[in-house]
């Protein structure tokens, strides 16, 4: 398969998000567990012989959620519930909702009420991550999720199966991180859109298949790296936010001469950044990974380490500008937003904030604003 064909497999997965999971279910005669963003331990679901399905893709008719979720609820929650109510998630046998905010707090219960599934759990993430007490708690919570999965499948999850799943996912993340590197080294090799298409499609494809394709893509790109001339004129951009939506933003940045070289999205770098140890207690290893993820607005260390993380990332990747994609009505993100923008300013990096919504972002306006920003940070190159 050629590079384009390989990438097309991911593209078509995003266009028809139910195809692969349905096929897998028939072949394997097993179930699928959906999860919302982010930080859900997919490795446990996989080790239980189930298909972990990231609910992020697919355009829903948002009005379908109106009777249950008020207009001021974030569009990630509204979009996800609308997908379910519109019958677009009928292949799911279960759902895990991580507790990241006031919206997720009641979402699973509400979902249970309007669209009950056989297996439904909250992942009760701790909000503090830096005091000793959290260690025992997060292990206990992961044990609980594991136990509930075992009850659902009617057998226990074998340690060797969990180890196998963790290894598979680690390999997957490593391959995707390699793609991120290759893209940053030479954005001509693989475009913004292609890179994030792969990361997002991976969430709804069988992981084994994803890895198989990625090995081939990475090797083709590595060959090309030496052969292709690096386009030095790309304006290096950092993107930050809860969720990368709409994907069109990636095209606009590229259109005006930019390349996204760093991000912290839950459906971006946050998803692939942290690996899990395969030695010792595997539950402890999963807990460690959770506590050591890159900072996000959903956790509450007082000093907002995320702003420093972003400023460092910006320096490290030598970015020329930062764009915050602010998902409207996402409170955790909003509370940190001012400080994050200030931190960029202090670091001397031009930054702008764009408000977005699932399926409801005004694309024309976004494009105009990206254009203006790119002109400002890229000067004549744009």
């Amino acid at each position, binding site marked *: 398969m050629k590079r384009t064909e390989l990438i097309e497999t991911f593209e078509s997965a995003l266009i028809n998000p139910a195809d692969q999971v349905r096929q897998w279910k028939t072949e394997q005669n097993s179930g699928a567990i959906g999860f919302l963003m982010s930080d859900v331990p997919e490795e446990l679901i996989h080790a239980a012989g189930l298909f972990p399905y990231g609910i992020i893709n697919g355009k829903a008719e948002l009005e379908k959620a109106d009777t249950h979720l008020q207009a001021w609820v974030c569009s990630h929650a509204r979009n996800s519930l609308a997908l379910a109510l519109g019958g677009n998630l009928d292949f799911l046998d279960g759902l895990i909702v991580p507790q990241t905010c006031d919206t997720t707090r009641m979402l699973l219960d509400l979902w249970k*009420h309007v669209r009950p599934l056989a297996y439904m759990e909250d992942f009760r993430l701790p909000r503090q991550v830096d005091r*000793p007490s959290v260690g025992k708690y997060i292990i206990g919570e992961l044990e609980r999720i594991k136990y509930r999965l075992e009850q659902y499948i009617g057998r226990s999850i074998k340690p060797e199966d969990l180890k196998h799943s963790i290894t598979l996912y680690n390999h997957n993340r490593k391959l995707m991180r390699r793609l991120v590197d290759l893209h940053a080294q030479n954005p001509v090799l693989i475009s913004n859109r292609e890179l994030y298409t792969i990361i997002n499609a991976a969430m709804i494809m069988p992981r084994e298949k994803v890895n198989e394709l990625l090995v081939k893509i990475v090797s083709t790109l590595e060959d090309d790296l030496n052969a292709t001339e690096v386009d030095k004129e790309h304006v290096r951009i950092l993107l930050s936010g809860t969720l990368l939506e709409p994907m069109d933003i990636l095209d606009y940045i590229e259109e005006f001469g930019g390349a996204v070289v760093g991000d912290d999205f839950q459906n971006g770098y946050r998803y692939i950044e942290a690996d899990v140890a395969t030695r010792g207690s595997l539950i402890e290893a999963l807990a460690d990974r959770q506590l050591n993820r890159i900072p996000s607005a959903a956790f509450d260390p007082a000093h907002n380490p995320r702003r420093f993380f972003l400023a460092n990332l910006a320096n490290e990747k030598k970015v020329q500008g930062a764009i915050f994609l602010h998902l409207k*009505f996402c409170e955790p993100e909003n509370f940190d937003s001012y400080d994050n923008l200030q931190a960029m300013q202090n670091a001397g990096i031009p930054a702008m904030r764009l408000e977005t919504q699932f399926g409801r972002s005004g694309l024309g306006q976004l494009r105009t604003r990206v254009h203006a920003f790119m002109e400002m940070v890229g000067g004549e190159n744009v």
Partner: protein
Amino acid sequence: MTAKNVFKTAALMKEIMARYNDAGKEAKKKGIPVAWVTAVFPVEIIYAAGLFPYYPENYGAVAAARKVADKLSTAAEARGYARDLCGYARCGIGDAYADEHPIGEILEPDLLFCCNTQCGSLPKWFEVAGRFYNAPYFLLDSPRVGLETDELCKGYFIEQLHEMIAFIENFTGNTFNYERLSEVLALSNEACRLWNEILDTAALKPAPFGFFDACFHMAPIVTLRGTQEAVDYYRALKEEIDERIENGITAIPEERYKIYFDHIPCWPKLRWFSDLFASRGALVVASQYTHSWAYSFNLERPLESLAESYTHEFVNRCFEYRVQRKINFMTKYGVDGFVFFSNRSCKPNAIGLYAKSKLIRERTGLPGTVFEADMSDLRFFSEAQVLAELEPFFEQLS
């Protein structure tokens, strides 16, 4: 509340709240650390440690009641804090940046404590404040609890109480005094007991006291729980209510129906709502909000008991628990219908209300409705819209 119906104790309350506010300013002068705390928080530990507890949510509620929440909010909005955030948080953050302080300035913290039993907005707000005022911050993390008691969450909370006590000791340089904690807990128990006895009188037919009265008289149970003042206050109020019962003075002139209401009142429209309900002969008798402070601590095992109470508070519970709790209130107070306030400021309480309302109508057969507004910001309030929901409901009652 008609003029002749004003409680004598109202004057007493103004007095003790003024004293409390003065004590806050005094504390600053005397070098007693001012500790920001949240409404559902083991403040007993703060009192026992000799810190001065201050409630920024109360500041938000006062700003809302005085109809200036939108003004304070503007200063926060100018910095990118969205109008959709909790109104209390916007008032607090807004005040930090504002040039004008129509209700006086918020009391600056020397340290901040937050418990997220209530919501996820408080910790985010307090973090922002911690950075703004450059004061140390401690989060008591309370993951959500389902229908049953949850040992994992309780154990986690107890460990954090130990961490918090060490944090305070480290800040003050004093060893924490557990005997003093016992005294404070006993005072809390007594205030809670009296407060709930008072709330219970709303079940009488006709009742001397209702939800709108409770909103007016609740400040001490929130802020002074754990002190003798709160106990004295509720004793006086209880006596006054007993007198009213004897003299046949009722909360509204003609009580025809009893109503259950969720959750927080719409502060800038408190009077408008109370008049509206009264004009229809409908007395609002209960809300899980005013019933939040119903603790009974076991002095033999103080930390465990604090953990049980503050983690298992209804705001931190699952959908089904909250539905059952509402129905229990409806049964206990013998209500004829219910009104739910979908408060855009308070997502943890407003999300799911439509489904809950439908379910409760099915389970109880009672009429009920949901209206949209904001507890503090009049920019999100439309009389016509609220009436469009409430009028048909009142008709259903009759």
